[in-house]
């Protein structure tokens, strides 16, 4: 059961989100225009194995705790693998080359780090973003030396993976880095509102760059799933690392909105109204989520309902528990597919 305060905040997210990003998305789409040589429509067709099923690797904390990438490596799985930008380096470190890596967020300094950031020191000064994300814990203890290794790793293996890059990605940081690393790049627009509305931002983006628009549901993980299940039209799609929340032992201080909630409401009794708990049915483990992850989770489930292809939650953890999605242990999915 979610509190009234939690529900009120959820209602506000889409409006403030649109206001916050509109100018940036249009400006980036315009500045990226000269770089857009190929769109996702130019991708080569999938072979039989790749077109049968896909695994989408998001960057939730379960990817490490459940060893999802290692499970793929240990299996004979030969379907399509789509990594989000945040899980890409973890894949490379474990010797797994995804078929695709997808990037979405327009931020100027944070996203480039997922590909190894040539301006690491400048971009990380006074930004505790990675300390507050329960994604890849390796990135919390990221150092200059580690970043250098990431740059080398991405440069060495970029040819094995096609990058699916959003027209809203930052032109002077992310896009420059992707080119420098030598990726084969395929572009798309974010579908951010109803293009049938006269003042639609999606329509404006498509007018600048007439390339396909994918619904993102607000996160790169959801965009990766739309790409695999709808654009590539793969009939069976497993998602891993799609936690949409935190392990129960994660302290509230490490959640993404903690500082803002404390500043606004002060004490922890008030704070609890902004978090809600779930039990993962296959294991009985407890997880909790905040309004933003809960909002992303809702978006994802609504899109799953609209998809004609099958989606299976193989995260083995987290809050993505609902009648609209099948849940299966990842090892069972890998043995069947």
């Amino acid at each position: 059961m979610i509190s009234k305060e939690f529900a009120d905040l959820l209602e506000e997210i889409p409006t403030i989100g649109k206001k916050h990003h509109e100018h940036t998305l249009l400006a980036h789409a315009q500045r990226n225009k000269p770089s857009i040589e190929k769109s996702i429509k130019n991708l080569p067709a999938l072979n039989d194995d790749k077109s049968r099923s896909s695994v989408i690797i998001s960057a939730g904390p379960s990817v490490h705790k459940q060893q999802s990438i290692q499970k793929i490596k240990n299996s004979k799985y030969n379907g399509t693998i789509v990594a989000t930008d945040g899980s890409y380096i973890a894949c490379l470190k474990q010797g797994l080359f995804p078929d695709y890596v997808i990037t979405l967020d327009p931020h100027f300094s944070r996203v480039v780090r997922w590909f190894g950031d040539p301006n690491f020191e400048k971009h990380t000064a006074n930004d505790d973003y990675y300390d507050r994300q329960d994604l890849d814990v390796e990135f919390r203890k990221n150092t200059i030396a580690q970043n250098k290794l990431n740059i080398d790793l991405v440069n060495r293996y970029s040819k094995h993976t096609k990058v699916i890059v959003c027209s809203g990605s930052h032109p002077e940081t992310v896009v420059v880095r992707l080119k420098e690393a030598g990726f084969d790049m395929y572009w798309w627009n974010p579908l951010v509102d109803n293009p049938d509305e006269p003042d639609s931002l999606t329509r404006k983006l498509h007018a600048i760059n007439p390339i396909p628009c994918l619904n993102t549901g607000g996160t790169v993980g959801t965009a990766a799933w739309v790409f695999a299940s709808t654009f590539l039209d793969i009939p069976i799609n497993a998602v891993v690392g799609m936690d949409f929340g935190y392990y129960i032992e994660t302290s509230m201080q490490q959640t993404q909105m903690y500082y803002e909630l404390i500043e606004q409401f002060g004490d922890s009794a008030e704070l609890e109204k902004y978090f809600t708990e779930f039990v993962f049915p296959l294991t009985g483990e407890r997880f909790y989520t905040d309004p933003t992850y809960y909002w992303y989770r809702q978006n994802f489930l609504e899109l799953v309902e609209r998809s004609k292809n099958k989606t299976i939650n193989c995260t083995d953890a987290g809050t993505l528990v609902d009648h609209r999605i099948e849940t299966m242990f990842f090892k069972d999915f890998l043995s069947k597919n």
Partner: protein
Amino acid sequence: MTNNNDILKGNYQVPKKAQVNQSEINRNNKDPKEDFKQKVLSSLGGSMVYMDRDKLIWDGDKK
């Protein structure tokens, strides 16, 4: 009973009326709720605007 307003009276005309810069006042007195929303948004990782719950893909109007 005498108060300060009875004693402190100006004996001259101010040549120019002070102009109140309303936009400056608005900027300094931000609505705390609005301010909070903006901070929430800037804290979101991997976030993107998202308003449409119907279409999964769109590639322009069919000709």
